[in-house]
């Protein structure tokens, strides 16, 4: 198995584990079998180790990329970071006039979308 394929498999397994743990924790919490703040908090945090594994595999993949691929990834991250920064700041101003608060999950989703867009733009630049 090549190193690239090994990383892809590792990423897939980490992501699958995250999804399963997330669904499991949601099922446990909605089932009502766990009571008390601390136990419920521990169940809610079950997916976090798998999320850390996803991050670790992603960092490993980034470091294994060649210099141009790393530059493209960094370009995409800059677009995602600055775009999300502007969007969330703007939403913050709207919250000042009574608009509903922005969920962290929405911010994360925005980050992903802008990252993908930034990746497409950066790849096109070096094609």
């Amino acid at each position: 198995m090549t190193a690239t394929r090994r990383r892809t498999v590792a990423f897939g397994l980490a992501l699958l584990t995250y999804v399963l743990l997330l669904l499991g924790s949601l099922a446990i919490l909605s089932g009502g079998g766990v009571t008390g703040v601390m136990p419920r908090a521990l169940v809610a945090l079950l997916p976090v180790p798998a999320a850390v594994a996803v991050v670790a595999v992603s960092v490993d993949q980034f470091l294994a990329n060649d210099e141009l691929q790393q530059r493209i990834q960094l370009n995409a991250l800059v677009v995602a970071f600055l775009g999300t920064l502007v969007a969330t700041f703007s939403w913050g101003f709207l919250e000042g006039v009574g608009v509903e608060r922005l969920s962290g999950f929405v911010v994360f989703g925005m980050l992903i979308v802008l990252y993908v867009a930034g990746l497409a733009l950066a790849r096109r630049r070096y094609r």
Partner: protein
Amino acid sequence: MKNQLRVLRAERRWSQEDLAHALGVSRQTVNAIETGRYDPSLPLAFRIAHVFANPIEAIFEPEPLATTNER
């Protein structure tokens, strides 16, 4: 930066994939260097020179520097 990568590669009948494998980079990187859209780092430029057994100056031609009057 202009370069002779495509010419040197063609002389050896290498594909971009072959050269990418020899340099330890992706085919996209080789293509970006050949089309002048990306200038390689110094370590990569030295690896390219080593693979083609040519000095760096024979492979890469820097853009002319602007003179004092032009600035």
